[in-house]
């Protein structure tokens, strides 16, 4: 008898622990970001951007906005189970965020079951084009877009143009995708790549010395990397320590994380690459006012350097909020329909979601990390904007 009681008690305890707290009044939005693991910084910045958007927007459909933030730990399985929790238990009407293509694709696979729109703000794989009616990409440039930005940038910069590039990527779908896109485009445009099969480093890699040795051995004098943003300064630091950066220039498929860039100090100088946003945009005509305003407010709210992860997550959230208002309801299909074709004029100009493939089109910047001039954000290293690409130049063309 006792044992029956214990089993029953355990089950009750388990259920009691899982009972949800509050009834739904606010509009709930599920936010999936990594808060632990190597990309935790990026996750924090994404959460900040989305939080800022919610604070700016204040209400949806006349109801308060409630963001429920869950940690994906950058693990697809965890993310899916958190998404289930956000949707089934918390009754979130939409999911937003997500770092890493692997996580994004796993979630996309399950989205029909979950039956809510999912706006990814930090997924770069090209597989997202037209993947699912409920899945959107609004944020980070996709790999084909960064490839265009980077190759064009290389061609436009005399110092970079003649170099032979060694391609090193993180070993998962985004890395592979980014490498293939870059290599294909480089080939077409006459940029030399020494290892067309590209080198793949496990995501866990902390010790880059072997890869650095390989780059040295390859005779390359340029490096193209597609590494998770937080890792870039780490790689740079080690490349510097080995004296690799004396001979090589670095082009990155993703913008380095702001905090990590700051932590890396001067080691992080000299990262060249295309991105959607850099706070330096506030010095560029046409973006000046909006960027400056957004930067100042972001810095004030989070005591953190404004960065691309926060900016495109902000924009993604704004797109979603606008669409919910436009749909006038929290019905998933209606929201999804409203997101298609929505546009928003944010810190980096006007963006819009192409209705044909559910992915965003936006302007982008070519940047290089350099020592920062005196600035209000306390940054010592920053991404200097070299060039601005209009959305049209980056492609791909939007077909309806």
């Amino acid at each position, binding site marked *: 008898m006792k*044992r029956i009681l*214990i*089993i029953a008690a355990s089950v009750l305890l388990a259920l009691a622990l899982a009972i949800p707290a509050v009834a739904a009044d606010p509009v709930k939005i599920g936010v999936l970001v990594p808060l632990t693991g190597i990309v935790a910084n990026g996750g924090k910045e994404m959460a900040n951007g989305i939080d800022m958007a919610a604070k700016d927007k204040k209400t949806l459909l006349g109801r308060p906005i409630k963001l429920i933030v869950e*940690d994906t730990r950058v693990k*697809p*399985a965890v993310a899916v189970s958190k998404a289930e929790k956000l949707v*089934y238990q918390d009754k979130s009407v939409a999911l937003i965020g997500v770092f890493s293509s692997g996580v994004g694709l796993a979630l996309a696979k399950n989205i029909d079951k979950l039956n809510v729109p999912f706006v990814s703000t930090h997924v770069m794989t090209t597989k997202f084009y037209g993947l699912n009616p409920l899945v959107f990409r609004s944020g980070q440039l996709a790999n084909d877009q960064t490839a265009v930005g980077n190759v064009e940038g290389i061609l436009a910069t005399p110092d970079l143009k003649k170099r032979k590039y060694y391609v090193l990527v993180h070993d*998962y*779908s985004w890395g592979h995708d980014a490498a293939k896109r870059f290599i294909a485009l480089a080939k077409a445009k006459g940029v030399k790549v020494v290892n067309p099969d590209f080198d793949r480093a496990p995501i866990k890699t902390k010790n880059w010395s072997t890869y650095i040795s390989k780059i040295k051995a390859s005779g390359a004098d340029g490096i193209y990397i597609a590494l998770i943003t937080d890792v870039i300064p780490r790689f740079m630091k080690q490349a510097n320590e080995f004296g690799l950066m004396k001979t090589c220039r670095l082009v990155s498929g993703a913008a380095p994380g702001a905090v990590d860039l700051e932590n890396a100090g001067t080691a992080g100088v000299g990262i060249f690459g295309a991105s959607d946003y850099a706070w330096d945009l506030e010095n560029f005509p046409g973006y000046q006012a909006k960027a400056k305003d957004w930067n100042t407010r972001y810095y004030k709210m989070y005591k953190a350097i404004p960065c691309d992860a926060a900016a495109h997550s902000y924009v993604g959230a704004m797109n979603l909020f606008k669409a919910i208002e436009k749909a006038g309801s929290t019905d998933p299909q209606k929201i999804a329909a409203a997101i298609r074709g929505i546009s928003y004029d944010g810190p980096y100009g006007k963006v819009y979601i192409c209705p044909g493939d559910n992915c965003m089109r936006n302007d982008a910047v070519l940047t290089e990390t350099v020592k920062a001039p005196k600035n209000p954000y306390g940054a010592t290293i920053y991404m200097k904007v070299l060039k601005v690409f209009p959305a049209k130049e980056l492609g791909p063309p939007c077909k309806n």
Partner: protein
Amino acid sequence: MSNMEQAAPRSLIFERLGGGKAMWITTAVMVVILAVLPFILPNRFYIRLVNEIMIYGLLAMSLDVLLGYTGLLSFMHNAYLGLGAYATGLFMIHIWPESIWVAMLVGTVFTMAVALPVGWVQVRTGGLAFALLTLAFGMMFYTVAWKWYDLTGGDDGLMGLPQPDITLFGLKLASSGNSTAIYLFTLAILLICFVFTWRVIHSPLGAVLEAIRENEERASFVGINVRRYKLIGWMLACGLAGTAGSIYILYRGYTGPGVMGAFEGAGVLMMVLLGGMGTLWGPFIGAALFIVLKDQLSSWTQDWEIFIGAIVILLVLFLPKGVAGVPALFNRQSGGED
């Protein structure tokens, strides 16, 4: 018969449960509660949670067959869940997407086929070396799953699992895409595995495994081929883990190398210890507590690891026999260490 029942040992909780009606009534009640749960609980999140608990409970139970009944420690039993999941998934994606039953069989058999040579090597060492070898082989499987991008999808995991109908004797029951259907399917498989394992544990073979756990040397000196039976225990545990893996991928529609990681393995070990070794139902309670705690804590606080860790430490210090040891606390004799 009744005479023999009386002479049967009464020393261990599971024996008492096994001998009496109490456990079967409890089991039946639990199964009924679990079976009606999806129909009375509208929130699918809980259904998914309970589903996950059932799968990990099965995995923990299979580890307990090894640890609690045979006395062998496996650090990475989850690797065999992973093998089962990948085998089932790959079979359905590349070879035959039609039948859920065949896929499950493939998952289980493949897991056991891999476990056989591994087990053969492991049982030659014994003791702590056995445990450390499970770590080595487990990490190897993990690394292969993680690095063999073309086959396993690497870090992204295995996706795009077909969702065939669940059929029984040609009769279509439901779609495996339906989470309630998968839930009930899991429950059914779980029940079969539980009854099967219970039967095995209380069979003459189970007695041999127990004897090895209690005193390996004495076991060999009553004529038991210890290595052979350890291998049988290992194969049984791995087969069950493979089955759990098959359900896992059907339930999740996805699997990645993450489920095979070393730290996930320690989590499974923790479930067994939470629930109490040497009882078949203990691991399920352990799995429930562990999964719910982890899930809830990670939602409530970013510092959930501290709490999980602290709970584990307190449990080991003050309740080393797990939840299954709780009855002893109520007994007159204190449940002290022997």
